[in-house]
């Protein structure tokens, strides 16, 4: 028998994998699956931002710019140039990453100033998407984007897309887990705690920050292409400051620095925004109140809730 802690962990991972793969059969409602699919796209996006904000401590308010760049790149390449989705998918990530490279000079800024500069960048990219109608079709949005496909597999409904989204989340998660546990991750941790101390340990903060920024941009670009081929319609207003803030909310709700938290946070926020629709005009008010209450949970977000409750019970 597989014994001990390690064996039990393997068993838990296996159980989770079976549960996730069986989910579309367990809960086959189309609307529900659609929301899950959207949640998976946001989970990829949130994982990238978690690396940037959580691990490296660089506050970005312009993440929707990279997300939108990826989405529009892939949509334009498939719709207007007839490129296969397999190629445009990669292109979406690469173009977003290149955009990230052009932004490297502003990484000299820190804290609030960096946040505002990225915010400004997001506004500029949104203005371009809105105004360059020859490229993006402007405020009416881009319609009839083809579904995602990989060779013989077409992901053209909620059910099929689920497996694509799940695979992307798992791959991103595993890659980032390796990254954060490597020398690279430890360097980021050092920079987050004190840039000055990191420099004295021979770490070049600007180099590391640039790398992580480009990785986050690339991931956001991939998430954008997933969104473009899931939704099959893009509107400039899907990529505003509100969207950047939404992703930030996801990683804080799930718990900063936790990769699992980014995924859970993405699911919670997507589900909350969809299912609060039942409350009509009170929907956003409830969402706002929920945010304020969740923020009182502290640095670990929902992840820290069980232990906080346990402490409180223990105290009596």
């Amino acid at each position, binding site marked *: 028998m597989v014994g001990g802690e390690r064996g039990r962990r393997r068993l838990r991972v296996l159980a989770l994998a079976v549960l996730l793969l069986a989910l579309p059969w367990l809960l086959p409602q189309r609307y529900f699956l659609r929301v899950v699919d959207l949640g998976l796209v946001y989970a990829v996006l949130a994982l990238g931002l978690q690396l940037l*904000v959580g691990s490296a401590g660089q*506050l970005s308010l312009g993440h929707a710019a990279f997300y939108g760049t990826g989405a529009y790149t892939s949509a334009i390449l498939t719709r207007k140039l007839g490129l296969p989705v397999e190629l445009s998918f990669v292109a979406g990530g690469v173009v977003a990453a290149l955009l990230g490279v052009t932004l490297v*000079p*502003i990484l*000299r*800024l*820190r804290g*609030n*100033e960096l*946040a*505002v*500069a990225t*915010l*400004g*960048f997001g*506004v*500029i990219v949104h*203005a*371009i998407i*809105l*105004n360059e109608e020859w490229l993006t079709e402007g405020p009416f949005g881009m319609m009839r984007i083809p579904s995602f496909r990989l060779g013989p597999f077409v992901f053209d409904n909620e059910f099929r897309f689920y497996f694509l989204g799940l695979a992307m989340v798992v791959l991103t998660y595993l890659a980032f887990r390796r990254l954060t546990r490597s020398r690279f991750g430890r360097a980021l941790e050092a920079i987050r705690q004190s*840039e*000055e101390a990191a420099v004295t340990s021979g770490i070049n903060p600007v180099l590391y920050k640039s790398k992580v920024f480009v990785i986050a941009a690339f991931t956001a670009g991939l998430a954008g292409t997933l969104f473009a081929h899931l939704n099959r319609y893009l509107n400039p207003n899907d990529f505003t*400051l509100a969207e950047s*803030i939404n992703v*930030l*909310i996801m990683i*804080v709700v799930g718990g*900063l620095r936790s990769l699992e938290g980014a995924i859970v946070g993405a699911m919670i926020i997507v589900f909350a925004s969809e299912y609060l629709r039942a409350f009509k*005009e*009170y929907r*956003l*008010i409830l*969402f*706002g*109140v*929920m*945010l*304020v209450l969740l*923020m*009182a*949970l*502290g*640095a670990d977000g929902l992840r820290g809730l069980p232990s906080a409750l346990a402490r409180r019970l223990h105290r009596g």
Partner: protein
Amino acid sequence: MILDPLIGGIAMGCIYSLIALGYNMLIRAMNLLHFAQGEVMMVGALAGVTLVSGLRVPYLVAIPVIMVICAALSLALDALAYRPIRRRNVPVINLIIATLGVSIVLSNGAILIWGAEPIRYPTIYGSGALLLGPVRIPPQFLAPLLVGGGLMVALQFFFTKSLVGIAMRAAAQDRDTARLMGIDIDRTIQYTFAISGAMGGAAGALLGPIIFASFNMGEIIGIKAFVAATLGGLGSMPGAMVGGIVFGVIETFAALFISSGYKDALGYGVMIAILLVAPSGLFGRRARA
């Protein structure tokens, strides 16, 4: 004439400055990016509609009333939302997101009260303009220039001459030392919220007659004022004043020379350029390592 847009830009800039002062006071006092500042301004503008159109209060009387309402609102936000969170020693990003939550609640609450349609202020100003030599000041810009300018001067006096103002500056500069000197830190933070709320209210009351008052004006104008605050230097009082006016002027001239679709984007582009040259803004206090 080049002077007309300049006057308009400075007038809008005074309004941005008032909101930016609110941002910078809160950043200086507690490193808080208060995203709901624009929504406090929005409540001021809509409350102004109710006062002036509904209750027939004269506009000039309504302005101080609105300032009191918004100061009270700002204090209430701190007491109900921010203070309980602050007590838990959470990271500052949690507090920032809580302010976003508050801004969502305020703007959607405003829809419930005032509806989603933009509301026009009753005609407050005549059509005659004030002529100062070659300078022509249209009446809707006169109030922002006079009231906004007056408030900024008054605030400057408050912070340099009054005991409460000096205590607030001391508390912002070094919390622990100020506490040892017998300054009640919680009290100074309440004063900061009240004054920043009053400034937001004044901005709303001045802005309402220029653009329509609506539930979403807080987001649009609030973000611009926030950029203005960064431009001047986050946490700096003179920075907020100068940054607001500079941003107002840039924006107005951008609208003249640039296709209107990119009008907003240009202001942000200039801001990024300035930050690259001066990473903590025009009047940044903090020396950078």
